[in-house]
């Protein structure tokens, strides 16, 4: 069967090769998705043949797949033929001062305590060349280069490090893994690539934040991060500032590879536009994130703070292949108004003495729905595997929902798996009690939320943790009272 498909692939592909006509002078792809679109994107990016072949394989896989309906989220059917899959990064309209920026966004910046210079970058205001973060960025780049650390855009990596990309892309999240991963593989626009050489400890938090001005990564982001033997890296994705985007559908793929004794810490703060209070608009965020602990004693740790997007569908996972490897997942997912989140993790124990830890904190407010979905799988050969899962739900008000879907598949008798779950509610009685002690409702909610999320926040890099706290407060503003 698979062979048959391959043959069909080859035939159709070659047909298309000759029939392929496109105007590559144009900056945008035509509306809709076809093999032409994929070729157009690849040509636009001057990609080598193997990359195009890989994309086309993904496209064909995608055609045979169907959109998943199992997540606990509801949205109107997406018409994939009405989406523009590639638009050349348009230079944003340069503003002359912060006075020209949407006051609502400025207000949020203020609440988050973002420094004035950073506000300007984020809002697209023209800044001086001598501006701090630019020089910081340059210093960072030189330092990384000295250590042999590669940190660049995915597009550059395809050109400059083709052997690394070719070896690892799709090795953790195969093209056919799921509907959105296949789509991403076919049409990914850009993303980040990172390689930490053997025995190297990356001396700073690597952050997409520093690349924010360089590339508009767009709606189909692809990230690949490889930590070679004995290396360590902490990677930050996203930022706490509100991100507005014209594109409604986002389908990113992130792949992590940790070799022997390597450790990857991957932190995300996601604050995409969640839609308005009536549930209009907002981003659909369908992300596939997975890491493989390939080597012995390796460790991958995901920490995420998810407050944005109208719909979130996301399960950062770890495949624990190397002996004694460790997988961790720390998550805070906040939904307010009409937001829907179905998020969690998968811990796949394959190697001996592998350990995993899951701490998930869901917060639902308004009329939102928040689901935790997690799989712990212990394969027959995974002797002495150990998992601990803690899944907590917090409800604010009485019109929202929290759901927990834990899945356990244990095929080895020596495995130890522990699961704890709690549900609590911030109701009027708690708020009145806090008010009676002089605390405003906003302060009370913040206090409770921070206490509740402490276990996750302490895994974030320090300055990020402080920002995340404020972000939660902003996200939940007006959710009570």
């Amino acid at each position, binding site marked *: 069967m698979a062979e048959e498909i391959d043959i069909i692939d080859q035939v159709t592909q070659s047909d298309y090769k000759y029939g392929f006509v496109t105007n590559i002078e144009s900056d945008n792809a035509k509306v809709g998705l076809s093999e032409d679109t994929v070729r157009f994107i690849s040509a636009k990016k001057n990609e080598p043949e193997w990359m195009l072949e890989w994309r086309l394989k993904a496209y064909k896989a995608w055609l045979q797949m169907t959109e998943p309906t199992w997540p606990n989220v509801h949205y109107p059917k997406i018409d994939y033929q009405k989406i523009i899959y590639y638009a050349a990064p348009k230079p944003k309209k340069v503003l002359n001062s912060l006075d020209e920026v949407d006051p609502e966004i400025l207000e949020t910046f203020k609440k988050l305590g973002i420094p004035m210079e950073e506000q300007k970058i984020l809002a697209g205001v023209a800044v001086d060349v001598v501006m701090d973060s630019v020089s910081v960025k340059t210093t960072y780049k030189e330092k990384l280069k000295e250590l042999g650390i590669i940190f660049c855009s995915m597009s550059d990596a395809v050109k400059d490090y083709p052997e690394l990309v070719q070896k690892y892309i799709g090795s953790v999240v195969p093209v056919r893994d799921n509907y959105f991963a296949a789509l991403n593989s076919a049409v990914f626009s850009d993303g980040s690539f990172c390689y930490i050489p053997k025995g190297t400890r990356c001396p700073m938090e690597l952050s997409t934040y520093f690349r924010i001005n360089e590339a508009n990564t767009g709606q189909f982001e692809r990230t690949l991060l490889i930590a070679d033997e004995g290396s360590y890296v902490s990677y930050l994705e996203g930022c706490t500032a509100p991100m507005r985007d014209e594109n409604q559908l986002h389908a990113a793929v992130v792949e992590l590879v940790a070799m022997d004794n390597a450790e990857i810490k991957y932190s995300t703060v996601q604050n995409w536009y969640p839609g308005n209070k009536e549930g209009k608009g907002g981003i659909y965020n369908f992300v596939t994130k997975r890491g493989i602990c390939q080597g012995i004693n390796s460790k991958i740790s995901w920490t995420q703070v998810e407050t944005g997007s109208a719909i979130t569908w996301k399960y950062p996972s770890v495949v624990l292949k190397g002996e004694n490897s460790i997988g961790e997942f720390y998550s805070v997912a906040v939904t307010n108004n009409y937001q829907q989140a179905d998020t969690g993790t998968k811990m796949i124990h394959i190697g001996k003495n592998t350990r995993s830890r899951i701490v998930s904190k869901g917060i639902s407010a308004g009329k939102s729905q928040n689901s935790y979905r997690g799989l712990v799988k212990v394969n027959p050969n995974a002797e002495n595997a150990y998992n601990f899962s803690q899944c907590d739900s917090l409800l604010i008000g009485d019109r929202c929902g929290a759901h927990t879907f834990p899945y356990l598949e244990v095929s080895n008798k020596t495995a130890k798996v522990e699961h704890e779950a709690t549900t609590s509610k911030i109701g009027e009685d*708690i708020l009145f009690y806090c008010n009676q002690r002089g*605390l405003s409702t906003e302060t009370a909610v913040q206090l409770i939320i921070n206490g509740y999320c402490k276990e996750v926040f302490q895994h974030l890099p320090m300055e990020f943790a402080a920002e995340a706290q404020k972000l939660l407060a902003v996200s939940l503003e007006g959710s009570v009272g």
Partner: protein
Amino acid sequence: MLSIKDLHASINGKEILKGFGLEVKPGEVHAIMGPNGTGKSTLANILAGKEDYDVTEGTVTFQGKDLLDMAPEERAREGVFLAFQYPIEIPGVSIANFMKASLNEVRKHRVLQPLDAVEFLKVMKEKMRFVEIDEKLMRRAVNEGFSGGEKKRNEIFQMAMLEPTLSILDETDSGLDIDALRIVANGVNKLKNENNAFIVITHYQRLLDYIVPDFVHVMYNGRIVKSGGKELALELEAKGYDWIKQEVDATV
């Protein structure tokens, strides 16, 4: 300090307070007694600012300000403290964190500098000894898994921390054994001074063996029907409430 005049209040259209009046001066302890369902807890909740009630008539003035016009947190910062009949559990927030936030809000209102962690801990330990509360409880979430007695002692601890001008104790004695009762009462007695006042709502005379009131008021059917000194409490203990009910009902 506190002046309540002809207060009428209802919940879901049902009138609970029917012309309640009370004057409280600094340094005084008032006990409010009465049978179940006469509006004692309603009064406490209205003074603290719980939203469920509609005040239809009357005024409440606290230190010259219209109390009913203030949000619950403003009342608290102005110095009104309610020791809850059923203290609420706050998941994930330690008592230490809770009280630090609370005390610093109140201090801000009094134009005082917020306490830093070291100063705060010092004050907290001192007040904890005061109500004989176990230090280990301070790291636990507020009231979570506390016994009935621990919850009530925690209320008195919070009162000691915030040093309110007017403290309202809503059946703080209910569900307490004799030792806990003594500790709670000692706490109140030590906090008492010429500048603050207490309204002690209770069902039984028992608490008043330990907290000696200056005035005892009997509440029935939404208002005060009899007032007197501490001996009135003893009379009630001996004779029950029926004679009062009969007296009131006869005059209607």
